[in-house]
């Protein structure tokens, strides 16, 4: 400062005020930064969690088969069970199934393969083949989504009482209201309420119709579910209209299917259940039948191979570098290499796996054995670095005391230093395993994206892992994959968080200040 600071007290105070304002602003920037970071995490978890919530439950169609009639009892096929289920469904909808389109709608409530679990059960216990059975079938993914989400836009209106029912030439029904003037009143009301125009389902005393036309002086209806009433004068029961809030052209579920589903739901034949198939089924091309079981087991095998390979090798390498290696060019080169290897992009390890394990050694593609080895190489530097840090934190006095009492260097390390460093090493190993569990890219390159419909039985079977399953389901076209993917993400995150929690608790429990 060359010029003297002869400033007035006011100017000084002003400058001080500005400096403190700057100070407060600077602190605010820091708070904003942290708020953004934590807010991002919160949005991520909430958005995925809210999507996932719906996938943990799903609607099941319960069909009682009273008199199963599987003629070749020893060899019941999916088709046999399916036929029995369809017969039973037709019994539930007498009179509806006059035309082909109605039958197609009914059978499309579930996919053909949804009887697979029941079929396997019968195949395993042939005596079931002629006992009354309860089939719990997953409803189709589109209907499931409709019943979970779009059903909220339904609105129910009481619009009058039934009068006269008659048949038109086109196979439709014509319904008038009991009160001769009532119709016009409620027609105006329906038109007013139903703005913008959406499809309408009409329900009256247990019969369900889809409203086809409202323009005339009567309701033109097509029958969807429930018994068909006798034509002619009706006893006066209330008519309710269900405004669907959407047009059938804009969705994959037809009006008739919605009416059928509502009818079944009212009779508790379609019920919301916990989605066990998410945990018990392997992958499938149908979202309603797909589950993460194969990927969970695949992840387990992969982690097993990774742990068996990387943890011992990593710990022993750390012991060598920290305790035995003399300062030489070779050891410093190894040190630099390990530090750099930890920062190599994971996809490079995938390239290594593809080139060395698959191409050179001719190991099979898509197996946990290869995946585990690749991930093992990937996390090896992490384990080495963490183990070295843990070993370094043990004070030299421990070694000196052991050596002073006549232990050899090996004994000093393996009997004293290593056990003391074990909690730290274990923490590092768990965090490394958590990283391996979440890794996707290298596994894509060694072919673990294959479609796996069988739960793998050994590390040498084709399989996939949870993160790759997330990627695959994410790529699926149907809308139902999104909640399923979110559900798998939640499963994966829960496992990862618990692993990290164990690591943190271990560190807390065994933390020692020297």
């Amino acid at each position, binding site marked *: 400062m060359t010029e003297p600071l002869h400033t007035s007290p006011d100017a000084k105070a002003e400058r001080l005020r500005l*400096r403190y304002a700057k100070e407060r602003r600077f602190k605010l920037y820091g708070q904003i930064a942290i708020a953004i970071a934590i807010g991002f995490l919160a949005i991520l978890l909430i958005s*995925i969690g809210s999507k996932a919530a719906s996938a943990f439950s799903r609607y099941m169609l319960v069909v009682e088969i009273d008199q199963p009639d599987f003629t070749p009892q020893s060899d019941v096929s999916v088709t046999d069970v399916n036929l029995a289920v369809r017969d039973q469904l037709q019994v539930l909808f007498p009179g509806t199934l006059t035309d082909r389109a109605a039958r197609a709608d009914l059978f499309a409530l579930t996919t053909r393969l949804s009887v697979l679990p029941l079929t396997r059960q019968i195949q395993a216990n042939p005596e079931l083949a002629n006992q009354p059975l309860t089939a719990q079938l997953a409803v189709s993914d589109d209907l499931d989504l409709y019943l979970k989400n779009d059903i909220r836009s339904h609105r129910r209106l009481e619009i009058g009482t039934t009068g006269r029912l008659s048949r038109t030439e086109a196979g439709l029904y014509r319904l008038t209201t009991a009160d001769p003037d009532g119709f016009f009143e409620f027609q105006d009301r329906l038109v007013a309420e139903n703005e913008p125009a959406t499809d309408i389902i009409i329900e009256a005393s247990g019969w369900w119709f889809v409203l086809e036309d409202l323009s005339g002086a009567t309701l033109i209806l097509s029958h969807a579910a429930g018994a068909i009433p006798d034509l002619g004068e009706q006893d006066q029961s209330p008519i309710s209209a269900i405004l669907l809030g959407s047009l059938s052209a804009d969705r994959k579920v037809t009006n008739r299917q919605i009416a059928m589903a509502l009818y079944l739901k009212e009779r508790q034949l379609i019920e919301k259940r916990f989605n066990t198939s998410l945990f018990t089924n392997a992958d499938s091309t149908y979202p309603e039948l797909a589950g993460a079981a194969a990927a969970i087991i695949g992840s387990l095998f992969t982690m097993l191979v990774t742990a068996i390979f990387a943890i011992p090798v990593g710990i022993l*390498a750390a012991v060598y570098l920290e305790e035995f*290696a003399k300062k030489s060019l070779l050891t410093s080169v190894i040190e630099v290499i390990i530090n750099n290897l930890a920062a190599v992009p994971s996809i490079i390890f995938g390239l290594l796996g593809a080139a060395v394990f698959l191409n050179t050694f001719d190991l099979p593609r898509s197996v946990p054995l290869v995946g585990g080895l690749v991930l093992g190489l990937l996390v090896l530097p992490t384990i080495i670095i963490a183990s070295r840090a843990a070993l370094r934190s043990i004070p030299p006095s421990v070694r000196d005391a052991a050596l002073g009492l006549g232990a050899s260097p090996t004994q000093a390390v393996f009997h004293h230093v290593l056990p003391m460093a074990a909690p730290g090493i274990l923490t590092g190993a768990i965090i490394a395993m958590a990283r391996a569990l979440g890794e*996707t890219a290298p596994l894509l390159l060694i*072919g673990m994206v294959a479609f796996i419909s069988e739960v793998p039985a050994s590390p040498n079977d084709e399989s996939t892992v949870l993160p790759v399953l997330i990627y695959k389901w994410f790529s699926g076209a149907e809308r139902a994959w999104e909640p399923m993917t*979110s559900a798998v993400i939640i499963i994966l995150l829960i496992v990862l968080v618990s692993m990290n929690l164990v690591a943190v608790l271990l560190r807390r429990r065994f933390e020692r200040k020297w």
Partner: protein
Amino acid sequence: MGWLVIAPLAAAGFFSFYFGRVRVGAISTGSTISSRLNSQPNFHGYFLAICTVLPAALVLFAYLVFAEGNIRNTLLSELPTYLLNRGPEQVDLFLDRVAEYGRDRSAAVTGNILFDASVDRYASLKGSTRLFAFVLAIAVGVGGFVLGRRQLTRTFTARAYVERTSVGLLFVCAAIAVVTTIGIVLSLVFETVRFFSLPDGPSVFGILFGLDWNAQTGQNFGAVPLFFGTLMIAVLAMCVAVPIGLFSAIYLSEYASPRFRAWAKPTLELLAGIPTVVYGFFAATLIAPLVRTLAQWVNALPFTPEQLLAAQPTSALAGGLVMGSMIIPFVSSLSDDVINAVPRPLRDGALAMGAPKSETIKQVILPAALPGIIAAILLAVSRAIGETMIVVMAAGGRALITLDPTSDITTVTYQIVSLLTGDTAFDSAKTISAFALGFVLFGVTLIFNIIALQVVQRYREAYD
């Protein structure tokens, strides 16, 4: 196969360990120093176990590695020439089938005379090789046991031998990391050289400076759009990660109360623990549609041209934003370390002069920590360049050179994944080009890492 090998080896190890221990225990008599054992009985046991198991294990390992190739070579030399003339791929396929049938002898006879004969020959070769290996392993093991047993005397320094062997084992473990690196470099270099020597392959110049990338269908390997896309996404990610990460680190280390720090820091680090595929899903399902809506809104503004922004369903901006958020904890924890490493007296000096905290930070701490912070940013950039799943899921895949962040874009990692998933015949230019890209990626990130790690190291030494 696995248990059949491991169980006898383990049994032999246990047996020789106890044998050695008991045997030495029998000769250790007397209490004067000269009559005591040089090493504890346990070490004699370990020594004998090593003598027995190690050679046998090496023989079995060699069998596992070399036997299959050797058998195939023998079989290959016996195949008729007309088959060999069909080209190496056909012969490989034939040998694979033979091996598959040979392993599972219950498979039905195919009726093809040459094939069945080959299967039989394969099986007999395999059987004899296996028998030879096992007999050799047993012989070597027994030999080692006998030779080792002779050594077990009172004066024998068993401990020295055992410890030397175990240190050798430790060294082998440490060397695996080096072998991995060598494996990476060799496989990348080998495939890259193969790529450039392909008859219809491109030149090095063509790849590095070509503007047209179309590896899936065509044969255009100009990688500039890939490099551009990678750079663009990395820059976008850094725009998010550096300010937020740095300010979080400053706030946490200088302003935050210990209580706030105790829960805020682990929470921030949670961001680093979330798998990248989850970020990719988040970017593709929430951020990318948001970016698109925003871009459409901007396009619809009265004073902007209609097609100002591309507004694609997947975009560089979506990928970059989410990737940046992922890297925040990386930048913040590294910066936190370097800020905390600035010596206390520097800070105290500034504060004692009456400077507010923010001025201390801006004028004293940050300049002192600058090299470390730059190193942290370099590491973060290398992380962003190598990140795969977010760009695969949220950044699209068209090889474009555009400055529009709402357009989809492709990166080096995206191309590696799309080229190598699906069929991986290691002979098409398409597949091998992935390795050339991987080589560039590895090289660039390695340079960044080496510089950054050097800076960090030097910096640590300066203040320690």
